[in-house]
């Protein structure tokens, strides 16, 4: 069967969005199927994101808009996949598209339907904390920004009465005849990213959910905290709207619980979201809010999480109480809730709180489970879709890939990483068809407007009655005609509709307009559309000025139409004065070298090279050591029982034979010239210097095991590290089998003041090692001394298995570390057991120190590629949440331990994500600079270098030679157009196109 150059992404949450954008930007047509009326998923409901407490909507909404506007993405909302048949490269997918009853092409989201609708029902986006209408918009920033009619509650659809929405809709968008239909699509691959649903705490009566409104789920609390939530971000408790003085968080609700819940796994994100919520709640409260988190193990295993945990305890004074919950009961007298719990010693306590937040876990949606079963996908014990360590995003069905929580509980960065990997994997099976189904936009030859007298056209939008109902749009248009150089102005009912767009294009051509002002809605959502309209008329798209007379005028001044009209005139006048000074700009382009350089030949680097090759791109691996494989050379087995060295050897054989991959071992980077698209890197190999030319680079420099300086390591031969232990497993199993007692100490060098991060892999490593020992000799005594056991996600099952097999786990505190001594060559370990409340003395034959993962010395690499490293020596990604595998510097990507400690599956996934990002660039064939970049008037420049020092993107530089030697210049391919250099320039020599001083001042003059 022929291959098809399109992919279906199922799920419109953050993982689906990332996969969609990666695929669409790489040249594939994408169908995005989303069950709800708008995309955004769970992340859209969150207030802030950990560990930086970035506003969730702020970082997500540009992505939503990008998906909504992408020429190669077709959005299918209110839709679900019914069946998939066919084979990799050519699948037939049946999608059920539910009736929306509102025509997507006609609806302009004016909201009249909702205003007129008499039905009020629980607003599920706000977790039922407030009501919505039966005709509604999912949330204000929704994409697509279209209403829908909820057929379950609409009176007309049930009883053929009412119909108010249809009567009043100015756009005639309501269609009660709309029908649910099945459509059939042909795609080359499928990416499943349907996400999860929060666990329903009603299943476990002891949590008291439902007994008082003051016991809420974490999702409800997100909405309570949200500035756009039901209470406008005012922290109040639901029962009486009083400000709570004390809030408790209850961890592991529905997770790590097979007695009362159905889930043995750890949901992986709840510890961090509880910490985040506690900190944010304190910030919201203008008083001293008391917050307490009741937990079993604190699992803050991600990048920056441990520091956030420490901060919450030390700086924000969040209380952490290690406990088992007995019950939550409503406090009938004073409101709020009484929490009964047992501490670590087993003593019972009770404490009243004004509110309790249940940190509910993540679970598979039954609909998703049904689909997975229908498709014949293997599931894990927790009901998630099973994948293999070495193919972390592949299902057992070829051509169907997964990412996000459907593959196992995980946080946003890991979901985004997997999404990149899944996009790359899906693309690679149809790489030959890349670019075959994408839309080519035909734009006419651009008109040269130099020398033309300015002819400004002003288009005032009525937006149905959204603007026209308040602002006298006719008056505004008439007024515009009185302004200098305005030769045409008009009012449009809906400027964004396709026919009006065509009309505007025609008008620009017919009237010979060369500057356009559009007074309508928000440029954030609509400016790109009008830019295309200009381009379609042969006018440079940068000759547009957008005025927001809806969100910033008619909607916020509806009580004062006169003032709103005056303001609209003022804004139009300001825009006209600016537009006169706008200049055509172009997106500069440069050839793009198709080769990738990969720094580091460990598992991440090897994987990256293979991924590039699968997509037809050549690469060069630079490895400092004499052999490939990095740390994987020392590991024994993965959590799914695979022999790491065997698998590594397979990968090495594969890269070695691949004609697309060049391997340089014993090699070191000596110098780097150039930037995105055109790097020239000098590499020394065995004393020979050679230059590799490449367009992009993947940093996969890895990390290493910390060499402990405590617990008699290096003194007593029976004290070894985790990697040493793995070597024993491989080479001396008989020796290990003979041992009577083995003790593991966790967090050696991790989570300490000088290294305040969690090394993420060690708990799982130890539990796995303990199980291997029990397999060798079930009678062996195995002790694990830990601080918090962090077997996140379904790794928790290994912990459970280890306990069942008789491995002893004893917790210790940082202030009270185990004491290791040696007497006559015999080791002794003393540790205080918190359950028994007494010291325990152990005499291990072997003491294994699970030592921290520390960064390699990468200062040089960081300087060469102009990329930042953090205090711990790990590289700093472009964005903690949404861009974990790339850098702010264009063309440089990141994978593996160089980013943060992580296990093999996550490293391989990140290599895929880094490659997906790189392919988005490489597949365009050229590098393009934005039209909104800084430029330098080198005659005026004094060469002071301020621009070079202030720019976060290293775009400005000082000319080293030529006529303007010593003067500043700017690399438009690195410039992001923020204008910081422009405002910092002391010689008025730097200008940001579209926001020059003259242009801003012209607006101010016209105030």
């Amino acid at each position, binding site marked *: 069967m022929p291959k098809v150059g399109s992919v279906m992404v199922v799920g419109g949450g953050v993982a689906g969005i990332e996969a969609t954008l990666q695929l669409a930007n790489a040249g594939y047509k994408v169908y995005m199927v989303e069950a709800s009326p708008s995309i955004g998923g769970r992340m859209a409901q969150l*207030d802030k994101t950990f560990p930086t407490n*970035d*506003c*969730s*909507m*702020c970082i997500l*909404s540009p992505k939503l808009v990008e998906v909504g506007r992408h020429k190669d993405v077709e959005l299918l909302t209110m839709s679900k996949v019914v069946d998939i048949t066919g084979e990799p490269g050519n699948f037939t997918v049946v999608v059920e598209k539910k009736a929306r009853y509102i025509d997507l092409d006609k609806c302009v989201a004016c909201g009249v339907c909702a205003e007129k609708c008499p039905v009020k029902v629980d607003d599920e986006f706000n977790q039922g904390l407030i009501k919505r209408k039966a005709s509604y918009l999912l949330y*204000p*920033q929704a994409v697509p920004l279209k209403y829908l009619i909820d057929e379950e509650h609409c009176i007309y659809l049930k009883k053929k009465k009412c119909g108010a929405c249809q009567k009043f809709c100015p756009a005639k968008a309501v269609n009660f005849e709309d029908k649910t239909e099945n459509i059939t699509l042909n795609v080359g691959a499928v990416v499943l990213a349907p996400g999860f649903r929060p666990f329903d705490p009603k299943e476990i009566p002891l949590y008291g959910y439902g007994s008082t409104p003051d016991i809420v789920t974490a999702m409800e609390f997100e909405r309570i905290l*949200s*500035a*756009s939530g039901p209470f406008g*971000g005012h922290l109040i408790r639901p029962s009486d709207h009083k400000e709570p003085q004390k809030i408790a968080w209850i961890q592991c609700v529905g997770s790590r619980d097979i007695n009362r819940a159905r889930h043995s796994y750890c949901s992986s994100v709840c510890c961090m979201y509880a910490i985040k919520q506690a900190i944010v709640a304190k910030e919201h409260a203008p008083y001293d809010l008391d917050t307490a988190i009741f937990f079993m193990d604190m699992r803050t295993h991600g990048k920056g999480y441990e520091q956030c945990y420490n901060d919450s305890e030390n700086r924000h004074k969040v209380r952490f109480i290690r406990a088992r919950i007995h019950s939550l009961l409503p406090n009938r007298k004073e409101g709020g809730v009484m929490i009964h719990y047992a501490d670590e010693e087993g003593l019972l306590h009770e404490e009243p709180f004004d509110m309790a937040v249940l940190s509910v876990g993540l679970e598979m949606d039954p609909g998703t489970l049904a689909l997975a079963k229908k498709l014949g996908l293997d599931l894990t014990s927790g009901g998630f879709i099973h994948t293999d360590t070495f193919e972390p995003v592949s299902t057992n069905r070829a051509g169907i890939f997964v990412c996000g929580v459907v593959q196992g509980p995980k946080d946003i960065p890991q979901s985004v990483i997997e999404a990149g990997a899944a996009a790359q994997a899906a693309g690679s099976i149809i790489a030959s068809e890349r670019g075959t189904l994408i839309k080519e936009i035909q734009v006419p030859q651009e008109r040269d407007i*130099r020398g*033309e007298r*300015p002819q400004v056209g002003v288009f005032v939008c009525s937006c149905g009655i959204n603007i026209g109902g308040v602002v006298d749009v006719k008056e505004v248009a008439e007024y515009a005609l009185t*302004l*200098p150089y305005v030769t045409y102005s008009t009012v449009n009912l809906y400027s964004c509709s396709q026919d009006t767009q065509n009309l505007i294009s025609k008008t620009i051509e017919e009237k010979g307009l060369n500057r356009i002002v559009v007074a309508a809605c928000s440029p*954030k959502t609509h400016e790109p559309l009008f830019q295309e309209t200009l381009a379609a008329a042969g006018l440079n798209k940068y000759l547009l000025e957008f005025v*927001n007379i809806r*969100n*910033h005028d008619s*909607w*916020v*001044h*509806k*009580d004062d139409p006169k*003032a*709103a009209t*005056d*303001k609209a005139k*003022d*804004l139009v*006048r*300001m825009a006209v*004065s600016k537009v*006169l*000074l706008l200049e*055509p700009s172009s997106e500069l382009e440069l050839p793009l070298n198709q080769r990738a350089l990969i720094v580091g030949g460990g598992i991440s680097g090897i994987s990256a090279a293979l991924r590039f090759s699968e997509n037809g791109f050549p690469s060069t691996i630079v490895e400092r050591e004499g052999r490939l494989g990095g740390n994987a050379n020392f590991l024994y087995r993965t959590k799914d029982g695979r022999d790491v060295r065997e698998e590594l050897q397979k990968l090495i054989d594969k890269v070695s034979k691949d004609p697309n991959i060049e391997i340089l071992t014993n090699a070191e980077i000596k110098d780097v010239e150039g930037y995105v698209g055109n790097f020239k890197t000098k590499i020394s190999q065995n004393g020979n210097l050679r230059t590799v030319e490449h367009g992009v680079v993947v940093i996969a420099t890895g990390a290493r095991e910390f060499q402990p300086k405590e617990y008699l390591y290096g003194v007593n031969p029976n004290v070894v590290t985790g990697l040493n232990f793995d070597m024993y497993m491989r080479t001396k199993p008989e020796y290990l089998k003979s041992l009577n007692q083995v003790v593991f100490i966790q967090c050696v060098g991790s989570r300490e003041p000088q290294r305040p991060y969690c090394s993420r892999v060690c708990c799982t490593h130890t539990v796995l090692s303990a199980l291997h020992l029990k397999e060798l000799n079930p009678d062996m005594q195995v002790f694990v001394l830990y601080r918090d056991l962090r077997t996140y996600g379904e790794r928790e099952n290994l912990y459970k298995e280890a306990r069942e097999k008789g491995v002893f786990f004893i917790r210790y505190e940082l202030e009270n570390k185990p004491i290791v001594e040696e007497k006559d060559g015999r080791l002794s370990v003393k540790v205080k057991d918190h359950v028994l409340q007494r010291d325990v003395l152990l005499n291990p034959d072997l003491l294994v120190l699970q030592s921290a993962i520390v960064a390699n010395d990468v200062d040089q690499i960081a300087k060469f590629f102009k990329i930042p490293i953090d205090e711990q020596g790990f590289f700093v990604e472009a964005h903690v949440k949404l861009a974990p595998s790339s850098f*702010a510097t264009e063309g440089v990507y990141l994978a593996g331990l160089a980013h943060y400690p992580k296990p093999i599956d996550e490293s391989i996934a990140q290599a895929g994500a880094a490659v997906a990002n790189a392919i988005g660039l490489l597949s365009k064939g050229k590098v393009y600079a934005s039209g*909104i970049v800084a430029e330098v008037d080198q005659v005026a420049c004094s060469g002071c270098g301020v621009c070079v020092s*202030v720019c*976060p993107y290293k775009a400005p530089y000082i000319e080293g030679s030529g006529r303007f030697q010593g003067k500043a210049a700017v690399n438009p391919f690195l410039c*992001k157009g*923020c*204008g*910081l250099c*422009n*405002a910092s320039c002391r010689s008025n020599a730097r200008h*940001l196109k579209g*926001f020059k*001083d003259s242009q*801003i*001042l*012209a*607006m*101010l*003059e*016209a*105030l």
Partner: protein
Amino acid sequence: MEETFEPQILAFCCKYCAYAAADLAGSMRLNYPANVKIIQVPCTGRVDVIHILKAFESGVDGVFVAGCLEGECHFLKGNLMAKRRVNQAKEILRSVGLEPERCEMFNLSSAMGVRFAEIAREMTQRIKELGPSPLRDKVKPDSLKKFLEYPIAA
């Protein structure tokens, strides 16, 4: 005069947070005084002291610069630079006899539509209490003529 004084206020809003917050205030159909006008800038780091001063010269009674929350600037540190420039502008206002309170820096996220409306009201109230800017009367009614003399680009 005081009775009918409606202060003119100009806001420089960054594209990623403050401008989006103002958009959201609209989507939420909040209400704030109509005399607050917004100029969009890619980042508050683009706002120069001269822009703030020029706004006063053009006769506005108050200016505020609104960027992302500190530490969350889309362009990493532009809002911190803006804060310094706002402080510098305040100093200049003080030195020429204007109240520095007429100029302010705010930080908000794109989800803070309510906060944006609050800021607009707060600033209006603040300027109402301060009274009209003394530079107001100095503005020529036909200031538009001035820009007609600007060299027209292209």
